[in-house]
């Protein structure tokens, strides 16, 4: 277990003390509505426990903490100190993915209690409680006081914003102290990203509070929470399915690794280098992701090449070379059904084209070759040269870059080569090693100079 830095300990201690200070008045105040507090506590707790046992580890990574609509409903229904008290058990029971578990739980609980108290103050300030309406004096007829609706949204929104600000401020502070991130980067973008979800949580909390106060009471308040609960449940499922999907893509790559043992980790590294080139060229984030996937999957067609040929030591006959050169077409045929790959599919088909038109499979030249294919071609050759193959030893990065520059214009697009040279000059080359243990000479910065040969074919 990692030891927490003293700054983080102090921060957590402060937060816990603040939470106690927020919640303590409720214990002595005779006006605390204990049945409502108990019920809301139970609701927070129930939502957390239910989420834990149903999703079985499928929680959103990083834990969204408690189920916020319930906490916000407590803010709307209870005095600020009682709301802080009601938020505690949910935070303590929240599922936590990383260790240290109890420190994190305590932190979440303290954070939510402080945020609930602050939100409650904001709500009181705008005279929120009066807008909720409630059971009127009329005994059997319709409620005497109707919720004051367009206006009721204003204090609720303010409370949600206050809640969000306190939570994100504390999140940023703990990131800055515990993980030594600069405070500016820890906070940047946090409020903007999380504000709209908190507002939706606030609306759901408001619905719950209005129904709770109405003559229909608690039974009507529970259905108000249901859509949000289902939605967060579906979101967790979505995260899980996305992980499964990524595992499937990795399995495709691993299937290639099974056949061609010398290329272990090659696919991942080509993906990495392709993404570096794309970033240097200023491509948008989603396009960069497509480039990365194109790099990862570029050799998937090798599944169609007989294993004996891929593992053959020694020179290939012209016929054998022809069979291996079919792999871009095999790869394209395989992934053409995957809709989200889009442009990446043509990159897989054309990553062995050469700018002078002497490549395969179609002999395209210059601008005819898709941009992504030109990116992947450079990344592929770069990794082929800097890692050990059956036919050659790994070369140092500068030698490989010089070789790429020598072939720019004939084999490679000079713009892509320059982008790779610049990117590596700026960030260095830190290859990811995915497929563990093997003959991996992936970071040959200072290894023995290798004999200069023609640019690695990458095939």
């Amino acid at each position, binding site marked *: 277990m990692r030891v927490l830095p003293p700054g983080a300990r102090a921060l957590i201690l402060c937060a816990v003390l603040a939470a106690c200070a927020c919640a303590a008045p409720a214990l002595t105040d005779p006006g605390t509505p204990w049945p409502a507090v108990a019920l809301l506590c139970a609701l927070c707790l129930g939502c957390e426990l239910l989420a834990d046992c149903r999703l079985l580890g499928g929680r959103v990574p990083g834990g969204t903490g408690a189920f916020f609509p319930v906490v916000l409903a407590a803010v709307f229904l209870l005095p600020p100190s009682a709301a802080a008290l009601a938020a505690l058990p949910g935070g303590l029971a929240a599922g936590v993915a990383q260790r240290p578990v109890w420190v994190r739980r305590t932190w979440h609980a303290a954070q939510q209690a402080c945020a609930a108290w602050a939100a409650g103050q904001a709500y009181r300030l705008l005279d929120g409680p009066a807008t909720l309406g409630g059971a009127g004096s009329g005994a059997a007829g319709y409620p005497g006081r*109707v919720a004051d609706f367009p206006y009721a949204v204003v204090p609720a929104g303010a409370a949600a914003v206050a809640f969000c600000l306190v939570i994100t401020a504390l999140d940023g502070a703990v990131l800055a102290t515990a993980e030594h991130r600069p405070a500016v980067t820890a906070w940047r973008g946090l409020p903007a990203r999380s504000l709209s979800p908190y507002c939706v949580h606030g609306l759901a909390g408001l619905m719950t509070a209005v129904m709770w106060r109405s003559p229909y009471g608690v039974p009507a308040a529970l*259905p108000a929470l249901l859509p949000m609960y289902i939605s967060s449940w*579906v*979101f967790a499922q979505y995260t899980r399915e996305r992980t499964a999907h990524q595992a499937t893509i990795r*399995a495709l790559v691993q299937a290639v690794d099974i056949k061609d043992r010398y290329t272990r980790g090659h696919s991942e590294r080509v993906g990495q280098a392709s993404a570096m080139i794309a970033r240097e060229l200023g491509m948008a984030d989603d396009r960069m992701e497509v480039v990365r996937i194109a790099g990862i999957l570029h050799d998937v067609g090798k599944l169609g090449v007989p294993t004996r040929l891929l593992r053959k030591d020694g020179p290939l006959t012209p016929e054998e070379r022809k069979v291996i050169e079919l792999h871009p077409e095999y790869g394209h045929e395989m992934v053409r059904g995957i809709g989200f790959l889009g442009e990446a599919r043509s990159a897989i088909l054309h990553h062995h084209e050469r700018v002078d038109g002497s490549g395969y499979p179609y002999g395209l030249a210059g601008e005819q070759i898709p941009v992504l294919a030109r990116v992947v071609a450079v990344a592929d050759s770069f990794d082929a040269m800097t890692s050990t193959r059956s036919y050659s030893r790994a070369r140092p990065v500068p030698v490989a870059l010089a070789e790429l520059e020598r072939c720019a214009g004939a084999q490679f697009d000079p713009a892509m080569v320059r982008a790779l040279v610049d990117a590596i000059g700026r960030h260095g080359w830190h290859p990811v090693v995915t497929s563990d243990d093997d003959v991996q000479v992936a970071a040959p910065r200072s290894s023995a100079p290798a004999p200069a040969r023609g640019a690695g074919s990458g095939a």
Partner: protein
Amino acid sequence: MRALAAGAVRAAAALLTLAALGHTLWNGVAEGATALAFGILIGIGELARSDHRDAAAPAAAEDRGQDRPQDRRPAPLGSAGALAYALLGGAAGHPTHHGVLQVVAVVVAAALVGIVPHIARGHGPAFDHVARRVLAVAFAAVCFQPLHNSGRLEARLGQGPYLVLFLVLLLGLTALCDAVLGAALAGARTGRPYGSLLHDELRAPAGIGTAICATGLVMALGTAVAGLWALPVFSVPLLLTQMSFHRITAVRTTYRQTITSLARATEIAGCTRPGHARRVAALSCAVGRELGLSERELTVLEYAALMHDIGQLSLVDPVPAGATAPLPAAEARRIAGLGGEVARQTGVPAEVAVVVERQADPYREQPVAARIVRAVNAYEDLCGGQGHPGGSLAALERLRLGTGRDFQPEVVECLARVLARDGRAGVGPLPPG
């Protein structure tokens, strides 16, 4: 018989619609503002409906030759608004007086207006979906409005928690009625047994259906205590739920596509004949549906059938013609075990890997899905994928001879039924994608 049931549902909806529109036009609308607000909500709900079919997700439904229950619930906001209007007893503290026929008229009019842009964009009008909505809403309204309007409900239950419990009960019944209607309509379309259709219909509400019912209930009660402003506020969480469901549908679609490509890898590697995995998957799903498997079991079956030959990728030398059926049992089992290992790495549910692993075991030791995959795969291997009729009959005969140990007799008979009904064309190669 099936067509008759579906026809009866449609005719009832049409008659009810005509009566409702006529009655409302003749007598005028009670509480026009409320009716208009709910009408707009339902119309917007229809507009916001997603056309799954035209997005990048044609594979999800059509690959299996039928649409799934969650796809058939395309307008959550519209459904919730319609339910809320049917259960509405008051607005901003004053009781309302609209009757059943007005509810139906408002729902139909709004739904039809909301459908127009979809038709304009060239998507077929989903009249079945409207018919189902009309009848389900009419059911809820018939159970609630007369009791409410005559004042007997308030006299008995008052305005309080008991009314909520009554409404929850009523929504449960409405969901049941809706499921029965859905099964009747789907029965005519797909020809599946009613039992498994009803099972699917009832399982589907566990997701978005529950959110729809809960929102409908809260909207009806919320309008009573907070006025019409409750409608926009209360629809936000449901829209969020709808969005989450869209995202998960999209990721499931790409997931299926990726698994299909993984299955295609064996064909490209020359391990199996072109289209073998997809044919086995389609035929297995047809058999599974005939046997009454649930949607979840069908998904597991489909993935397992797509991946059943994946173990051959680990072999240095391919099996002759990729046919595992004629291999000695021990060898087939070893390849199945290799396949299970690969499947485990792909992140598919664990059941899928188990099915892949056990596909070569004797049927008494297998899970149901593995029995189906085994029989269908053997059939595919034996008739050579060319679809010549003599081969098909001979292959079935071979399977029947193997029912003592290898193939479950029920599965083989089911396969024979599916083949006889659909002809070879019905289970032939699917369109790529």
